[in-house]
């Protein structure tokens, strides 16, 4: 193929599709390559897409009955021991009207829908016949010549472009090939996610979770859910299914000799969860690596002449306990990457400095501000006092606080003291308290 593109995007996940939409709107000639049968077919998330960038890409998306599952107006953070759960629960009609601040998605459906929207934007651009979304193609190599990015190689063919956006997700083989990430990335700051999609009669689902119309609930879990392994659990409501799963610290999993799908079954067997999912039918089991948000695993430099890396390929993710933010980071960083490429094209300069402006924009955005600010919270989530002792202590206190026994009731202060004594030392709590105060 002699034709040269302004840009080739590798990967039609959230990051790649956001970049493509931005390029199409900016009248750029590009090729978006995806190895899956269709965009989304290879992707797994929890998943809630947080924030409102989606409305930038697809204005008034809420008026369409497609793509997304439910909007979140009900959030719950649950501490769990082997018998009990103690939750912080927040529901508000404040979140009922668009623009929503979080929508639940199933990637196989969502990415595919978003790709259709990108195709519409291509059709409306000057390059309706020259920009393409190409599924079923695996990019094998980024082509570089004299220190410059000149295109990619796929299926034995070479495709040329002024620039490449790597939006290949966390298993970022090409980011490694071009030398921006180490060839071997250790397990230390990675988690393995396992998930099931469970189907219900829609009416049963809506009644059980008190859903109204397209409202939805998100629930995160800390403690027994992960059976002693660092990490957490999640449960999100879709239209007529729920997404339930765990993210498990991979290094800890290795050290504790545990198996992800066995822990998932233990979680599902927990009396509170068993009541919640009763009568459902599992329709899919899936797994995927997810990064932790620990800066130590992020590539320092996200650009080279003619090339930028966005989304989870750049390990842009934050899991600070109350939510996993990977898709919104992918979306925003994809937009920023495409904007930098558009500017480079205007100035006919795809050099190092032009590409660096992408990373500068990223540093100035909420993504890097939050990642930088919440590093301590990320570490806290991997602190055994936080993930094990704390949930046990909280549930123990809850059990005492909510028991009415026809005998003199101790003051809550004493109940708390007892619970602390049984599960942790004051010293551990003081340390944890100090760390939490700093982290949040």
């Amino acid at each position: 193929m002699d034709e040269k593109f302004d840009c080739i995007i590798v990967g039609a996940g959230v990051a790649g599709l956001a970049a493509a939409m931005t390029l199409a709107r900016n009248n750029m000639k590009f090729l978006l390559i995806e190895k899956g049968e269709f965009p989304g077919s290879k992707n797994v998330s929890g998943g809630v897409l947080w924030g409102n960038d989606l409305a930038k890409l697809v204005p008034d998306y809420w008026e369409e009955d497609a793509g997304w599952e439910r909007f979140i107006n009900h959030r719950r953070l649950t501490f769990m021991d082997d018998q009990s759960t103690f939750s912080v629960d927040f529901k508000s009609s404040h979140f009922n009207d668009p623009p929503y601040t979080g929508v639940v998605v199933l990637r196989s459906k969502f990415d595919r829908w978003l790709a259709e929207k990108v195709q519409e934007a291509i059709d409306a651009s000057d390059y309706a016949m020259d920009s393409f979304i190409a599924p079923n193609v695996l990019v094998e190599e980024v082509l570089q010549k004299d220190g410059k990015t000149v295109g990619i190689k796929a299926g034995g063919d070479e495709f040329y472009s002024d620039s490449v956006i790597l939006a290949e997700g966390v298993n970022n083989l090409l980011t490694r090939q071009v030398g921006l990430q180490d060839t071997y990335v250790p397990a230390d700051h990675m988690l393995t996610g396992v998930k099931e999609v469970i189907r219900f009669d829609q009416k049963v689902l809506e009644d059980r979770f008190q859903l109204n119309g397209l409202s939805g609930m998100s629930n995160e879990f800390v403690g027994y859910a992960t059976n002693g392994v660092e990490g957490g659990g999640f449960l999100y409501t879709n239209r007529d299914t729920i997404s339930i799963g765990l993210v498990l610290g991979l290094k800890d999993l290795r050290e504790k000799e545990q198996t992800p799908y066995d822990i998932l079954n233990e979680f599902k067997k927990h009396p509170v969860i068993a009541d919640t999912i009763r009568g459902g039918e599992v329709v899919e089991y899936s797994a995927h690596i997810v990064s932790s948000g620990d800066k130590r695993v992020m590539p320092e430099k996200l650009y080279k002449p003619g090339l930028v890396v966005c989304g989870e390929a750049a390990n842009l993710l934050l899991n600070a306990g109350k939510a996993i933010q990977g898709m919104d980071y992918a979306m925003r960083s994809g937009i920023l990457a495409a904007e930098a490429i558009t500017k480079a094209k205007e100035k006919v300069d795809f050099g190092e400095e032009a590409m660096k402006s992408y990373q500068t924009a990223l540093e100035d955005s909420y993504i890097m501000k939050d990642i930088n600010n919440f590093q301590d919270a990320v570490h806290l989530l991997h602190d055994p006092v936080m993930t094990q002792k704390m949930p046990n202590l909280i549930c123990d206190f809850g059990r005492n606080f909510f028991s009415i026994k026809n005998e003199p009731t101790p003051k809550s202060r004493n109940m708390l003291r007892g619970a602390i004594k049984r599960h942790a030392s004051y010293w551990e709590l003081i340390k944890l308290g100090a760390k939490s105060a700093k982290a949040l």
Partner: protein
Amino acid sequence: MKLLSLPERLGLVSYRNQAKSEIKPHILVDTDICNSTCPHKCTTYVCPANCYTKDENGKVHFQVEDCIECGTCMYACDQGAVTWKFPDPEIGRGVTWNFG
């Protein structure tokens, strides 16, 4: 609700090129390393699709057919035994998620 075993769970996965008898494996494992110097053989318990197994003699075996492309073994194996690639869309295996 009934808890599913791993084979039941994998039975719900849509794999690609399932009709093809010959597929090109996308992951190569140097099992000589597994069976000589590896101290933990962790992939035999952390792989979410149980592609790595230990036989009755403790010997590690790998099969790629059930792989769901999660990436876990690429990070978990710190012994340099795993060469990890994505499956070729035409002649590889790999997954197509229905929900994701």
